[in-house]
């Protein structure tokens, strides 16, 4: 468990960020910035990501600053109706739990997380979606069928992937196509 962040870090670490999917090919950042970036999903606070990755608070703040300057991420903000839909309160942390990000054990992950991870590696929206297609072309269709995955879109897919063979196949396919294996730990 990381120590609580310093006060000046809290400003960033309790905010939620999302990828812009507009990263310039020329942008070069330290590896730990990209490692942090790969977990940014628009629902988890930066502090939650720190804890999941066992990342020091200072390093996370540095990564956030680097990624913001590179226009790779933006702070996610909510309007009143978005934050209090139909009079009910949905806190970001609760929302993250609903999408599974706070409840994952070491052997499951959300399909959406894999899709976001792959898309974050591309320079344009359509290219990212086609990259996801190329990754899934490498996965034996039977493994997907066994998990009940027969169709998915790119934005709202909260299917939980559990099968160990499928987890391995996805990790291998991302490594082949994207150059980096998807890691769920």
């Amino acid at each position, binding site marked *: 468990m990381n120590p609580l962040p310093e006060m000046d870090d809290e400003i960033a670490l309790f905010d939620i960020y999302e990828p812009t999917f507009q990263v310039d090919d020329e942008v070069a950042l330290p590896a730990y910035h990209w490692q942090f970036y790969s977990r940014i999903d628009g629902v988890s606070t930066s502090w939650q990501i720190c804890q999941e990755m066992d990342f020091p608070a200072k390093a996370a703040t540095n990564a956030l600053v680097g990624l913001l300057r590179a226009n790779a991420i933006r702070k996610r903000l909510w309007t009143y109706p978005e934050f209090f839909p139909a009079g009910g309160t949905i806190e970001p942390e609760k929302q993250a739990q609903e999408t599974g990000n706070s409840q994952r054990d070491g052997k499951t992950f959300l399909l959406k997380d894999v899709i976001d991870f792959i898309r974050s590696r*591309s320079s*344009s929206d*359509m*290219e*990212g*979606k*086609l*990259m*996801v*297609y*190329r990754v*899934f*072309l*490498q*996965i*034996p*269709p039977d493994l*997907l*069928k066994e998990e009940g*995955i*027969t*169709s*998915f*879109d*790119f*934005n709202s897919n909260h299917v939980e992937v559990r099968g160990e063979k499928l987890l391995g196949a996805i990790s291998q396919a991302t490594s082949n196509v994207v150059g980096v294996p998807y890691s769920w730990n």
Partner: protein
Amino acid sequence: MDISEKELEKFIDISCGCFEKMSPKLRPLEPQEPTIELNQTTFLDFTGIIELSQRGRKGKICLTMPEDMLDEVLDALGETQHDAESQSDLIGELTSIISSNAREHFGSSLSISVPSSMTHMQTGELELAPMRFILPLKLKEFTSYLIIALGGQNEPTA
């Protein structure tokens, strides 16, 4: 087969622009939110099919359109006949534009077939690789679909 994202994106751009190539009166097709589907694709009234092959691996790109959309294009081209034959000819012509533009772009790096066309009834015989990228393309209120079905790592042919 291993076509890169950029190459596939080029196919999409060419497909979106195929109406404009037929007549400057027509606007490009507007891509909508795609999906990835496994073994379940809905074909519309008429479908044009382009076969691709690269180093022994095969794939298909299909453009499937409803009659109403084809009639809209026939109208824009000043064609008064809107029967099944004209609609089938038109889908054939559209896919020919796509394949010839693609051939021009890709050269010998990718083998691109002369396109064929099918009616909705015939698409039951169409063999496609199981993993498909389905991109809706809109013109006014009409929606067609560009289907990219490439053979995966475990399917040398499709």
